[in-house]
């Protein structure tokens, strides 16, 4: 039982990270109609920069903080160099050009840092020493840091919701997503709006990468897995819907963690141990996609259709 609780918490925390990446992806798609495969690269860079600067400054937290402006700058540079030439192109061109960006940036990462996973400082200063834990129920200690991530994952979406629903900039973003021509007719510099949204999304993804760096291996390609799961999140949640992305991200995070932990055990009830392990692992990695397929079969536009229709 406590095992399930731990897996549920892990799933929640993974879901939160997915949301941070997916939110930017969804915003950029909603506002600019740009499908940006290279968004996962921001996540990877966030993790690398946090790890390196963390070791360099001797503090994980300082590293994580410094990774934000770096992610922002890289995002702006990529926008200026590549993405802004793609806003008027079809989705196919966008997919391919941003694919080229991924190949380039990942290769650059390998050239700079090598292919091996990076060492990451442990986030210090939390109760009970480095990576200390909290007793959440009797006899069950859960790492404080992971709880912090979950906390962040509750605060950031609220902040985002406030920004999008309650501020002038947010209103422009929402209007820009559905009626781009009208917003520019109102005299708003749509280019500037694009750049701001883009930079913001890039920073969120970088932030997610920094947060993830002590938990997941920091290696080239770490962004790809997250990116594809984010697509699943967006597809399930409904393109352009932040609320949908949040719910779908938690769903995907939970399914993935709990499935991986539970399916092999469940299958052991009907299969012999070795085939239970293999089938269980295979099923667990497919679980998210099977659920996605099922949801889409009944609701092709996702759970919360809205914003710009695909």
């Amino acid at each position, binding site marked *: 039982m406590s095992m399930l609780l731990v897996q549920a918490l892990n799933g929640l925390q993974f879901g939160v990270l997915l949301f941070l990446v997916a939110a930017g992806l969804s915003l950029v798609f909603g506002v600019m109609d740009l*499908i940006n495969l290279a968004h996962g690269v921001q996540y990877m860079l966030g993790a690398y920069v946090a790890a390196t600067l963390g070791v360099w400054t001797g503090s994980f937290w300082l590293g994580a903080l410094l990774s934000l402006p770096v992610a922002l700058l890289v995002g702006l540079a990529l926008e200026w160099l590549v993405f802004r030439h793609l806003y008027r192109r079809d989705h*196919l061109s966008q*997919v391919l*050009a941003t694919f080229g960006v991924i*190949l380039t940036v990942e290769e650059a990462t390998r050239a700079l840092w090598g292919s091996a996973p990076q060492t990451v400082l442990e986030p210090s200063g939390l109760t009970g020493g480095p990576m200390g834990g909290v007793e959440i129920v009797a006899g069950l200690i859960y790492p404080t840091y992971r709880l912090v991530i979950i906390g962040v994952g509750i605060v950031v979406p609220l902040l985002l919701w406030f920004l999008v629903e309650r501020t002038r900039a947010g209103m422009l973003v929402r209007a820009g997503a559905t009626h781009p021509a009208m917003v520019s007719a109102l005299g708003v510099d749509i280019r500037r709006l694009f750049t701001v949204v883009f930079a913001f999304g890039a920073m969120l993804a970088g932030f997610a990468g920094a947060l993830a760096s002590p938990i997941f291996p920091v290696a080239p390609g770490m962004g790809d897995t997250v990116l594809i799961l984010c697509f699943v999140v967006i597809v399930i949640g409904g393109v352009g819907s932040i609320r949908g992305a949040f719910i779908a991200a938690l769903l995907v995070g939970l399914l993935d963690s709990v499935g991986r932990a539970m399916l092999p055990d469940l299958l052991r009830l009907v299969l012999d141990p070795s085939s239970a392990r293999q089938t269980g692992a295979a099923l667990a990695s497919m679980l998210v996609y*099977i659920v996605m397929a099922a949801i889409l079969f009944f609701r092709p*536009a996702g759970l919360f259709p809205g914003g710009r229709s695909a």
Partner: protein
Amino acid sequence: MTAPFHKTLRKHALALVTLLALAAAPFLGFGDGFALSLLARAMILGMAAVSLSLLVGGAGLVSLGHAATMGIGAYTVVAFDAAGISEGLIVFPAAIAAAAAYALVTGAVSLRTSGVHFIMITLAFGQMAFFTTSSFSSLGGDDGYTLYARTEWLGTRILDSRLTFHFLCLGLLALVWVGGGLLLGSRFGRVLRAARENPQRALAVGFQPYPYRLVAYVMAGAVGGLAGALLANATEFVSPALLSWTRSGELLFMVILGGVGQLGGAILGALAIVLLEESLSHLMVYWRLVFGPLLVLSVLFLPDGLVGAPLRLRAAFRFASPKRRNADA
């Protein structure tokens, strides 16, 4: 009212020349083992790219998971190999059928969506296939599987001859290309093309695009499976990397680089990409630092692909020449 012969010839000149060059290559100094295996890979990927081009250019379905069909074809060969079966009359039909079945199931779901949704879902399904193959620990898991022997045909090991294999690949590539062209020009293809350009119009005259798209998707999947079975034989090694989403991206790139309007463009694109990768990776360690930007630049500056490049160049020259510009104004 079929187009006159010389017109057809001119339209497909570039692809025909490429195929002829591939036929002549073994006798013009590209007959050593290394060159032949490189060309075989290019032709096999070209086959998969042509089938993808059928989807992208013909039906307007941008799949970012096409490598999965290739991977399933390859893994079918491997699974039979592990079971001690290597008869081509069993293995190849099974590989094609497995890939087609995968395309049928995933297509049935994916095709309910369109646009960006479709891109994302095909990507997600491809990823699912990828993780599934990496969990096959009896087939090597992440590390992959080395084929014990190339596929036999009626007990003979004709595929062991590199030259035979070369011409088998070339013949199948030509077949897929011609077959795809016929398909697009048929009744079926007309419905696909109409539904790509204006689905509302297709519906208004009574065509629901879904079944036509699904059949096209399954056909492309079957060709992908064939390509995968050949690829397993060409490299005698299969790993999940074959199904990775970067492979799918690369296939898509071959289609676009060649030129999406013509199936033959995909052959050209495949050849260009395979040769470019090969030569770059010989020149430097981090060759993708050059390859990646080249891809980006080609998207930005070659929207019609290589097939359209000559026209584009001509137009650019005309624009640059001041005399003509005055004449045009």
